[in-house]
């Protein structure tokens, strides 16, 4: 739930500004000075503000963004630009087990070939980096970010808000850089029209609070992981899961083929053209990890976004059934051949908590299966790091070998229903 917002009249993100001032390095085009008291005040109340993040931590960037949403002056318009390390970002009301291939996420992606932060690039070519799983606070579907993707956010007062205004702003920036076929489609995404196909390059999502409207979007510019996106967003649990909430709409994606910096500068330019009365008045502020983490609200936000309770526990109710049910009569794919032939599992989870569960064909007899089902009732999926453990017969001694059936079912469930925290 959105935390309590400050009352009207609360001034801007002073803490970020104050701290950012100490970090402000020489930015290419602008002169940086430490803020005087007077300047801080001015910035906190300014009607048009531009921030660029220097961190690639997705949890931190989303928390800085949330801080700007909650603390910028109610009448102000704010642009925030950030780039994340590889991560999959699900919408507020989505189901990670349904949207994401969690085992593949843990396997990670190769290090970015052109990442300047990776000096060991040459020697570490085989090493992969895990892909973070992030649940954002805005609505919409699942997207992939990496260093070849730039995220842009515009926060504005509700009366000025509409779902296309700022996507159009980004389209103007792209066209200015020679991407002539860029346009906003009916889903408020930015697409490029090729000769025969239309590709999505930017997805939109929104968060609307009482006083503020937030529109953020991705923009795939030069991701080296393009071919990996689709597998990452295909869940092995999909045939078995029926979920309330929001399902993603698949789109063909491609890179725009621009470098990050010219794109960012063009977006800033278009934003200034829209909102700057006197351009020189809108300064760009850099926000770094060190300064942001000195702001208690941002630290709290990061902690919340990184918690399993938010990432998994916020999931709307869903069922998982190995076989067709009245509610979900889809034909199921064959289960792995090493599972017991008569194995059945049906469970309903709400906020991750198992509301009802029926296991069949795993224990030595029906009583064992019922006992096992009872032991799992009210347990939370996000607290089941390893299904092989929870499926063990209760009377087995710790060092006793796990029965083969349990081993196989456990391994499969780790794959389709795990959170992977200890695998």
């Amino acid at each position, binding site marked *: *739930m959105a935390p309590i917002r400050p009352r009207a009249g609360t001034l801007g993100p002073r803490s970020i500004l104050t701290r950012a001032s100490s970090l402000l390095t020489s930015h290419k085009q602008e002169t940086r000075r430490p803020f005087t008291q007077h300047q801080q005040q001015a910035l906190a109340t300014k009607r048009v503000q531009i921030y660029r993040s220097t961190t690639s931590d997705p949890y931190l960037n989303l928390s800085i963004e949330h801080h700007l949403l909650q603390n910028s002056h109610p009448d102000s318009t704010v642009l925030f630009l950030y780039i994340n390390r590889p991560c999959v970002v699900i919408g507020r009301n989505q189901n990670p087990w349904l949207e994401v291939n969690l085992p593949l996420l843990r396997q990670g992606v190769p290090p970015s070939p052109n990442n300047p932060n990776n000096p060991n690039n040459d020697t570490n070519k085989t090493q992969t980096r895990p892909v973070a799983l992030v649940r954002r*606070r805005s*609505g919409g579907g699942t997207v992939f970010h990496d260093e070849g993707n730039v995220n842009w956010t515009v926060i504005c007062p509700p009366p000025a808000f509409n779902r296309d*205004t700022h996507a159009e702003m980004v389209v103007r920036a792209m066209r200015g850089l020679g991407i002539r076929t860029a346009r906003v489609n009916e889903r408020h995404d930015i697409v490029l029209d090729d000769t025969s196909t239309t590709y999505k390059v930017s997805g939109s999502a929104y968060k*609307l609070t009482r006083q503020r*409207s937030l529109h953020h979007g991705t923009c795939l510019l030069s991701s080296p992981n393009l071919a990996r996106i689709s597998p990452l967003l295909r869940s092995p649990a999909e045939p078995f899961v029926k979920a309330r909430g*929001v399902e993603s709409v698949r789109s063909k994606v491609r890179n725009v083929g621009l470098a990050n910096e010219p794109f960012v500068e063009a977006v800033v330019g278009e934003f200034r053209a829209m909102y700057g009365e006197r351009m020189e008045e809108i300064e760009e502020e850099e926000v770094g990890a060190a300064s942001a983490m000195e702001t208690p609200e941002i630290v709290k936000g990061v902690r919340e976004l990184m918690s399993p309770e938010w990432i998994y526990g916020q999931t709307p109710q869903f069922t998982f059934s190995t076989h067709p049910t009245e509610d979900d009569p889809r034909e199921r794919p064959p289960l792995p051949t090493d599972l017991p032939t008569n194995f059945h599992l049906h469970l309903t989870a709400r906020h991750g908590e198992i509301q009802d569960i029926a296991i069949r064909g795993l224990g030595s007899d029906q009583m064992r299966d019922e006992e096992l089902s009872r032991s799992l009732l009210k347990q939370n999926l996000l607290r089941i790091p390893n299904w092989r453990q929870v499926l063990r017969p209760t009377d087995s001694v710790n060092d006793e070998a796990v029965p083969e059936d349990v081993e196989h079912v456990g391994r499969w469930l780790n794959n389709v229903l795990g959170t992977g925290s200890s695998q």
Partner: protein
Amino acid sequence: MASIARCLRSARPSGFSSLVKSSVSRPIAIRSFSVTSTNAIRKYTKEHEWIDLSADNKTGVIGISEYAAKALGDVVFVELPEASKKVKAGDAIGAVESVKSAADINAPISCKITAVNVLLEEKPGTINQVPEDDSHGGGWIAKVQVDEEGVKDLEALMDPEAYAEFTAAEGEGEDH
């Protein structure tokens, strides 16, 4: 519920404003769905929530307005308030998602949530169909307990006529 209504204006540039305007002449207050009390007073916030207060000023029902529901577009998920939670006027108590937008539902007055409409989790589209229906099967969001502070908060809200004028003005703003 803040900005939704506004953002949708642009999504439906034509026809929508006239739709909104037509609601001006429709006396919403006459539609009495209340099962919780006979003489409930309905009030609206600028952010498009409504609250019915029971005649004894002790309990109420909260929902989002028809205007907002129309403006929202297809509601695909409703995040319900937490039962037994105490909230202040303006606090976010839940959210609705439609067209990639997570929009806060705010408490119209200070109150304590006593029950939530679990039907909405299963059938979020109920919000689009009968948003101002506070009976069983309706699109109401939560039932609440109200104390003196809550009753006082009510003074700042609009009655159905004032709200109809307010939304008509919002709809007109769109034409510029």
